C-alpha cells in the first residue's frame, strides 16, 4: 500500500471507529432507557452511527485491500488498532452523561461533515452528505436534553454539572489533529479539525446559556485515542462487541 493510501485508510478508520464505538456504547441503553420513547431515540441514534460506520469501513476495506472487509475491521482489530477519540469510549454513565456526550460529539460531527462536503475525495463527500442529515436530528435531540436537564430540577442540574466535570477534559482531543488528519487536511481530502473549534465552542455556549451551565475554564485535555492509546474502557467494550466473531470466526446469521 502506498504511503498516501495508508494515511487515507488511517483517516477513514478513525472516522469509522468514532461512529462505531459511540454507536455501540449508546446501544447499551437498549431496554434500559429512562422511558420507552427515549430508549428508542438513543438506539435509533446508535443505528445511524453504526450505519455511518459501515459506509466508512466499507471504504477503508476497499483502500486496504488484501482481503479486508468491513466485518474484519470492526470485529477483529484490537484496542490499540482503534483510532477513535477517547470521548466516545467512556462509559455511558447516567442519562446526563449520555446526552451531554452525544451533544458534544454530534455538534462536532455536524461541523466536520459540513466541511467534508467539499472534500476532493468523492466517497468521503458522499458519506458526509448522507450523514449530515442524520446528525442534524442528533444535535437537536441532544441539545434539548442538555437544556431540559441543565435548566430542570436541582437534581437534574447537578447531574449535568457532574457529567460536564467528567466529560470536559475529553473534548479537546476532537480538535487537535493527529498526523494522518494533518496530512489529509493538507491534501484537501480531510478536514482541518482545529478550524472547527471556535464554531463548536459557540454552539456549546449557546446551548449552555439556556441550560444554565458554564463552560469550564480548564485548558488541560486528555488525548491519545487517535493514536491508539485508549482508556481501560475500550477493551471491555470491544470484548462485548467482538465476542461472537472471536469465538466463532466467520459466523454469519
Amino acid at each position: 500500500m502506498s504511503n498516501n493510501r495508508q494515511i487515507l485508510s488511517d483517516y477513514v478508520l478513525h472516522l469509522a471507529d468514532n461512529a462505531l464505538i459511540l454507536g455501540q456504547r449508546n446501544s447499551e441503553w437498549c431496554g434500559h432507557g429512562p422511558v420507552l420513547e427515549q430508549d428508542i431515540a438513543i438506539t435509533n441514534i446508535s443505528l445511524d452511527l453504526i450505519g455511518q460506520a459501515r459506509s466508512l469501513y466499507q471504504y477503508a476495506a476497499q483502500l486496504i485491500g488484501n482481503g479486508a472487509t468491513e466485518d474484519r475491521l470492526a470485529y477483529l482489530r484490537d484496542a490499540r488498532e482503534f483510532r477513535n477519540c477517547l470521548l466516545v469510549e467512556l462509559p455511558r454513565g447516567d442519562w446526563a452523561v449520555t446526552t451531554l456526550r452525544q451533544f458534544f460529539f454530534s455538534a462536532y460531527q455536524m461541523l466536520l461533515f459540513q466541511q467534508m462536503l467539499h472534500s476532493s475525495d468523492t466517497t468521503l463527500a458522499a458519506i458526509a452528505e448522507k450523514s449530515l442529515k442524520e446528525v442534524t436530528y442528533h444535535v437537536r435531540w441532544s441539545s434539548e436534553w442538555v437544556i431540559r436537564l441543565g435548566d430542570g430540577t436541582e437534581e437534574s442540574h447537578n447531574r449535568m454539572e457532574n457529567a460536564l466535570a467528567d466529560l470536559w477534559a475529553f473534548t479537546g482531543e476532537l480538535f487537535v489533529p493527529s498526523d494522518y488528519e494533518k496530512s489529509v487536511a493538507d491534501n484537501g481530502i480531510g478536514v482541518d479539525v482545529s478550524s472547527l473549534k471556535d464554531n463548536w465552542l459557540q454552539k456549546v455556549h449557546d446551548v449552555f446559556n439556556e441550560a444554565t451551565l458554564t463552560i469550564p475554564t480548564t485548558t488541560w485535555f486528555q488525548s491519545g485515542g487517535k493514536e491508539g492509546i485508549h482508556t481501560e474502557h475500550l477493551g471491555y467494550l470491544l470484548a462485548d462487541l467482538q465476542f461472537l466473531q472471536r469465538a466463532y470466526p466467520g459466523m454469519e446469521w
Partner: protein
Amino acid sequence: MLSIIDLGIVRAVNHSEESGETEIVITPTYSGCPAMDVIRMNIRMTLLEHGIEQVKITTVLSPAWTTDWMSEAGKEKLRAYGIAPPNPRQQVCDMKLFAEESVQCPRCGSYSTRRVSEFGSTACKSLYQCNACHEPFDYFKCH
C-alpha cells in the same frame, strides 16, 4: 402496497444491450437502514422471476435521499395505511429547539397532534399522538 419506487429508493435503471446487463441504482433512506440487504435481494429475485438474470445492483449515497423524492401516490398509500406522510422538507431543516412540526392525523385528519418522540419504530419515523381522536401514529419524518 408501497413500492421502493414510490419511496424514491430506486434512482436509476440502466440496461446495456451490448452486455445484456441490467443495473439497478438504489440509495438508502438512512445510513443504518437495516432493510437494504432485503431490498437488494428482493430486487434480484423479482427480476429473476421476470427472466432477467444479469443484474447488477449499485448503491449510491449522493445525492442523499430525501422525502421530497417520495411520490404523491406513495404518500397517499402511507396515509391510507395509517402513517402520516412527510411534510415538505423546508419545514424541518432549521427547526428551532423544542419546536414541533404540525402533522396531520392520518386517521381523523386533525392537525391538533403532539409529538411523543422524535424517533419512532424505525429511523425514518417519529411518534405522534392525535389530541382529537387520541390515535397514536407514526409520522414519516422529513429528511
